């Protein structure tokens, strides 16, 4: 339903594809021209001009004071490593620098607004494209250049030069891309540090965990039990990124189902802590609902029901670590995870 309020119908005016768009109305108002220049108070009243000049000078002076203040603050206030000490130094320096900058800024703008001439000028625009003459010369120039190169008569050369130029970037690209990727062994995604017999330990202290330590409603953040020296290396952080586990003890009456057959022990379940959505640690355990919530995108897993996804953008349940106890009562893994932990990737199921 057209809503145009133009008394003339659309059929009267044919769309013109000229340089000025689709307008074809002949009956238009006339441009009244640039409005008359109105002088400012500072243009007419010399006292006002003098007053503003003083204001501008004062602002510049304030800026100088700010600069001096910042240098004084720098030397006088030494951060002592305590929170209040560093805060004092930061605030003083920041405010002094701001005063120094604002002084110049306000002074300059005020000067331009009140004292500098504000007479409006009109400047003509030129066409955005080059003139036909110039274009003609350029076109001819390229034509002549092409003629001189003789490439039109030598198609073999054309193909040869294109092939060589297209190929040579590989000399740099291949080594660059290949070396940047490390050993490219994506099979490593399938394996973690967990093996049969690896004890479960508290993160970050590294103490091994006894089954009896956990009471109903307990949650423990778990890493594989590995000697302390090994935990102070880079490789450890990369392995930990796959190996972290969340250990929960539930009332056996609430525990409906494992994700992996037989993986739990007496109401104690161990699930991978890496979210199957995009890999954040799933760590918010709600004791009463047995829901495990990931804080990044709110994927929610029901730990009492095989870590099934009950809300959010994850699709797959968390992988489960099969656990049991050893002869001294410590919780140990029975095996590694039986699927790659964390986010999905193309060849995950292969």
């Amino acid at each position, binding site marked *: *339903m057209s809503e145009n309020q133009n008394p003339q119908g659309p059929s009267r005016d044919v769309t013109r594809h000229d*340089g*000025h768009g689709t307008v074809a109305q002949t009956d238009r*108002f006339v441009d009244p*021209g640039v*409005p008359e220049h109105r002088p400012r108070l500072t243009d007419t009243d010399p006292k006002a001009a003098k007053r503003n000049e003083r204001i501008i000078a004062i602002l510049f002076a304030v800026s100088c004071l700010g600069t001096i203040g910042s240098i004084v603050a720098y030397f006088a206030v030494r951060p002592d490593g305590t929170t209040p000490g560093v805060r004092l130094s930061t605030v003083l320096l920041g405010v002094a620098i701001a005063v120094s900058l604002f002084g110049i800024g306000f002074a300059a703008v005020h000067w331009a607004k009140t004292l500098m001439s504000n007479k409006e000028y009109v400047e003509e625009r030129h066409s955005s494209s080059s003139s036909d003459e110039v274009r003609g010369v350029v076109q001819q120039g390229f034509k002549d250049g092409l003629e001189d190169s003789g490439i039109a008569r030598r198609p073999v050369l054309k193909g040869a030069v294109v092939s060589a130029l297209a190929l040579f970037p590989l000399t740099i690209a291949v080594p660059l891309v290949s070396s940047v990727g490390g050993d490219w062994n994506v099979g490593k995604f399938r394996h973690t540090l967990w093996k049969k017999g690896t004890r479960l330990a508290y993160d970050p202290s590294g103490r091994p965990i006894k089954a009896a330590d956990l009471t109903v409603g307990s949650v423990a953040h778990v890493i594989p039990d590995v000697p302390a020296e090994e935990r102070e290396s880079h490789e450890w952080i990369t392995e930990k990124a796959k190996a972290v586990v969340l250990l929960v003890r539930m009332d056996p009456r609430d525990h409906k189902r494992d994700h992996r057959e037989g993986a739990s022990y007496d109401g104690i379940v161990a699930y991978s802590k890496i979210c199957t959505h995009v890999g954040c640690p799933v760590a918010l355990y709600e004791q009463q609902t047995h829901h495990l919530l990931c804080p990044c995108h709110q994927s929610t897993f029901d730990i009492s029901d095989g870590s099934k996804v009950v809300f959010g953008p994850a699709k797959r349940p968390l992988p489960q670590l099969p656990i049991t106890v050893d002869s001294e009562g410590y919780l140990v893994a029975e095996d590694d995870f039986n699927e790659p932990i964390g*986010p999905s990737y*193309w060849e995950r199921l292969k």
Partner: protein
Amino acid sequence: MSTTTTPHATAEPTTLIGKSADYLDQRTKVGVLAKQLVRKVFPDHWSFMLGEIALFSFVVLLISGVFLAMFFEPSMALTTHHGAPATMDGQLMSVAFSSTLDMSFEVRGGLLMRQIHHWSALIFVAGIVVHMMRVFFTGAFRKPRELNWLVGTLLLILSLAAGFSGYSLPDDVLSGNGLRITDGVVKSIPIIGSYMSYFIFGGEFPGEHIIPRLFTVHILLVPALILALVGVHLFLMVLNKHTQYPGGGRTHKNVVGYPAVPAFATKMGGNFFIIFGVLALMGGTMAINNVWNYGPYDPSPVSAGAQPDWYMLFLEGSLRLMPGQAEIVTWGDWTLSLNILVPAVIVPGLLFTFLFVYPFIEAKVTGDRGEHHVLDRPRNVPARTGLGVAFLTAFVILALAGSNDLIATHFALSINTITWVFRILFFVGPVFAFWITKRICLGLQRKDRELVLHGHETGRIVRFANGEYIEVHRPLDEQERWLRVNYDVRRPLEIEPATDARGVKRKGYKKDKRWQRLSQFFYEDRVEPVTPAELAAAHAHGEHDELEPQHDAPALVAGSGSAEREH
């Protein structure tokens, strides 16, 4: 002695500046450039300073960034930190994190510089967004400025890359989890995903290469690209001359404003100092990115309120809103994670595609191949304004969705309910926003028409001897009227008929018909500006609006006054 080549038209320079300029010019012909620039006219409006927000905060980023680069060590080697703050003393962490702590607590002004740098980054992207909004809503992207629009959109993307690589450098738990999410998104890409993950991290996540690599990206690759593109952006802006708002004397063949030297350059310089001052004030008084509260990156901890910086929130919200059922296993046992690809690749792809192609679509639906140097008032282009508001609505809904846990805690709502509400709003909101914006624009245009035809209401009521009451209207002056009537009317495209004179179906008709339909979506509903004829007609039967001599008492006493009421 004077040279033997061209005779000097001007006298020999005597001042130091004059002599230096002469020295330079004799070697570089810089006079030609200076001639173009020294009194170049720039139109003056506050909305033309929004690009400067981005430009000057970028300068502040460079300045503060140099300071930071003097103290930051981009290494993931492990070290035991000794010193402030007390909560980090004696802890094992990467050298990158440790150097960030030293910079904050041991180096005087270090924390100030870090905070100025981070606030500037947030303001940099915000400045680009408000500048882009101004350019979009006023139609400054039309010919000859389409290329500059493309350059600007690329700059937006680069600013996101700069911010992301920058806040990941301290190697803390918050940004490290952000990197982990990025790894998860990359892994979801079909066929090459797991290899791309290895490419980026040099092995499995997190490895020991990512921080030094991000450092190179952040201080070398991205700033170089940004500087180059900013150069192109400003060059094109100077070459095409700045656009100007409609008004008296402002045509598509001129620029009305103030000369570069001194007024415009002084205001620009002053603006730089004011922006720098605001950033310094914020950096000195408002805490930001206190990485010691998050701790050094470890794959185990995570904090509530795990979000990226504001400009990445749209991706975060997108990931949070997508339901999980969409991951499918294809025939052949390949895993296609649409639940990640759709929010993290397809939705941003669509948003950025809209930004990139919009000028060309609009040019096609208007059939307009002319140059435009006078800006549109947003109300005069209702469909474009509506689309822009719809786009922003989608963006804001995604950003709010990314903050859903903070909304839940602050307004005592259920995070699950909030997620569902935003899932629906993401589709419904932009449609509703488009519709209501378009209605408002058309309404404002009609109000303008009424104003032109009938003038300002003065509030003066006059009663004639015959008992008639009128409100006196003051007609608009020339400038006010010109502002409201000087806009181009756009009508839907007219295309050649489906069949030619001999009844043969024309090739290309279907494509033309599609463009025409899109054009109708844009321009079917429109309000056209008042013409002098209409104004005269309004005066003819609206004579009671103004006090004219013929309304003197004697003429009306005779009972002739049943002048036609306001229609």
